[in-house]
């Protein structure tokens, strides 16, 4: 049995070779499972930090998958997962309106106070 393997890199699949006949073939999620975002807390007292995403059928599988994928090297002691669709993100097009007005308002930084010497961790 001959199996011909063609390796394509991103973007170099010829137009006429995309899709299989009528309609479009979408690259479906593996097994149709939703995507989950994974947050790991590395030790007590610290925040959960976003570490990546994975696919799983439900929350329990997502946590177990996260345990296997993201904590193999003792990265964490607590895992949060949230389905990616529940995350709402700001629009990159809004970046100008959102963030640039803050650039010339240095007075919003609490750097104009003289702090007493003995005050630590500010």
């Amino acid at each position, binding site marked *: 049995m001959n199996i011909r393997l063609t390796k394509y890199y991103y973007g170099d699949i010829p137009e006429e070779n995309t899709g299989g006949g009528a309609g479009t073939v979408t690259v479906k999620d*593996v097994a149709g499972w939703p995507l989950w975002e994974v947050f790991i807390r590395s030790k007590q007292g610290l925040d959960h930090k976003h570490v990546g995403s*994975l*696919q799983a059928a439900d929350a*329990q599988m997502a946590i*177990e998958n996260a345990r296997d994928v993201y904590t193999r090297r003792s990265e964490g002691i607590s895992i949060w997962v949230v389905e990616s669709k529940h995350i709402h993100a700001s629009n990159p097009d809004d970046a100008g309106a959102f963030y640039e007005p803050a650039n010339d308002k240095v007075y919003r930084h609490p750097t104009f106070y003289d702090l007493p010497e003995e005050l630590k961790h500010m």
Partner: protein
Amino acid sequence: MYQPVNTQAANLVNYLLHLGDNALILSQRNSEWCGHGPVLEQDIAITNISLDLIGQARSFYQYAASLEGGDATEDSLAYLRGERTYLNCLMNELPNGDWGQTIMRQFFFSVYQQLLYNALLQSRDETVAAIAEKSLKEVTYHVRWSSEWVIRLGDGTDESHARMEKALNMLWSYTGEFFMPAGYETAAVAEGIGADVAALQQRWMEQVAAVLQEATLPVPVAGKTWMQSGGKEGKHSEHLGFLLAEMQYLQRAYPGATW
């Protein structure tokens, strides 16, 4: 360098090899999924389990090698024994089959291993008890992970249910061997070192039945099936020779090769 099976002096060594071989052979089988798992996350999960099992095998082999003395090492025990001196249960050497069969085997074995290591915590041999204690945490996760998947696939689609039922029927006759003590196991129990495997069967059955029921799979009636045996005495299926040939190839072809 290797003592023949069942000589009186080699009982403890054989017992340790049996424990190590169970772990190593299943590890080798699971590792065949590396790069072939149904999804990336499960590919990593099953190979993680492989690595846990290799770790356990190493611990048992290191201890066995120290007792055996001479030029025995964990590597010589893993790479330079033929199949007649491997003492693993037959189930662990069976080909993987589909994902369902691999999961079902892992489930059967992990539940057994959890009960076994729990019993070994009471071993009079401190090293054996320590290895059991260290390994239990890993095995507890293996039980959780494999139970979860047996339930998920058994109580899944018609296709997944049918495959799990097929795996159950295919593997069931290999479960009895866990609980039939070999000579070195009986001897190890007598010395307070080993675990009485026959005594574990009742609890294994209860635990397995609970998961199978939740998975909507039929629960086999205990004692109704003729059980395979022989692996613990070195009498193996035709599959082990091929497995060892692949696993041992490098050390056989290039003795002493290192990274």
